[in-house]
């Protein structure tokens, strides 16, 4: 951000020279300084009826509310990418020596997730396998696995269904946003 220039001295003074002024940290993070500093609430809005007992949050509920508010700001795909980060960091920290996924593998998965609606993404298990990323969704007898590869290779989506007493049905195809969404909708159908 370029420094804010303020000149307030009288004419002829050396203090006419511009002086860079550092903003407080909170203001430095503002995307624009044109926003109103004080939000005007309409006076006729009353959230608690007159005379009603005001709710007093306990510490637990207060922090839970804060965590909930923080969580709700992240989209499902952000949470999945966070889980991938955690898995990759964990793999890097482990002593097993298994190669961790390349940035290209992570980027390929992120690119796919970015265009699939949050509503079908759910909460997959995230696991790594010798440099591959595996996201697995399970519902009842159906499973969908998205595999991302470290080599320059398009991700694959695998589907599996096991009906009791019958052979399993399964298939694997190249993962595109359309095919991934199709199989995730199939999973939840």
């Amino acid at each position: 951000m370029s420094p804010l220039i303020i000149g307030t001295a009288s004419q002829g003074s050396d203090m006419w020279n511009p002086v860079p002024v550092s903003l407080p940290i909170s203001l430095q993070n503002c995307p624009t300084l044109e926003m109103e500093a004080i939000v005007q609430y309409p006076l006729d809005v009353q959230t608690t009826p007159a005379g009603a007992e005001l709710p007093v949050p306990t510490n637990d509920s207060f922090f839970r509310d804060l965590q909930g508010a923080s969580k709700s700001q992240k989209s499902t795909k952000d949470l999945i990418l966070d889980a991938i980060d955690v898995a990759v960091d964990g793999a890097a920290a482990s002593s097993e020596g298994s190669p961790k996924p390349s940035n290209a593998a992570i980027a390929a998965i992120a690119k796919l997730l970015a265009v699939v609606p949050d509503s079908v993404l759910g909460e997959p298990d995230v696991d790594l396998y010798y440099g591959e990323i595996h996201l697995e969704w399970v519902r009842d007898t159906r499973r969908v696995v998205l595999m991302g590869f470290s080599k320059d290779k398009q991700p694959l989506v695998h589907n599996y269904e096991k009906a009791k007493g019958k052979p399993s049905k399964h298939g694997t195809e190249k993962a595109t946003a359309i095919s991934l969404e199709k199989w995730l909708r199939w999973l939840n159908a």
Partner: protein
Amino acid sequence: MPDDVPNLVNLVPDDQLVFRVLTLPGWYRRGRLTYRAFVLRGDEEEISLGLSPEAALEGLNEQTYGFARLLVRDVHALDKGLTVRLKPDNPMRAELWGLPPWPEDEDQRDIPMAIAEDLADISEFVPPLPPGNI
């Protein structure tokens, strides 16, 4: 007998339970076993099993996360060409043969993954043994 023909003499009886050690946490997630517990790794040709949890742990020094318990009859009933055979040198140890290798070519993943999922589907989780029992 050619090397690639299973030795039927050493087949484990159908009514025998066998145990697969879970050596990675990702093999058991959210209360269920995953296909990853039944994928061949690296140069593996078979999966090691024990006829008891204790026998399955023999020779392992790494951290483990419980066991997958399978009934041999269920493995054979999958009709995927899988056989459970006793190890010749240890009557309490067995091996699961017939799993397809995990292919280098990712496009060939479908069948190995489906068989691994079939095995996960017929398995039951057994928690890790208490430290005194190992």
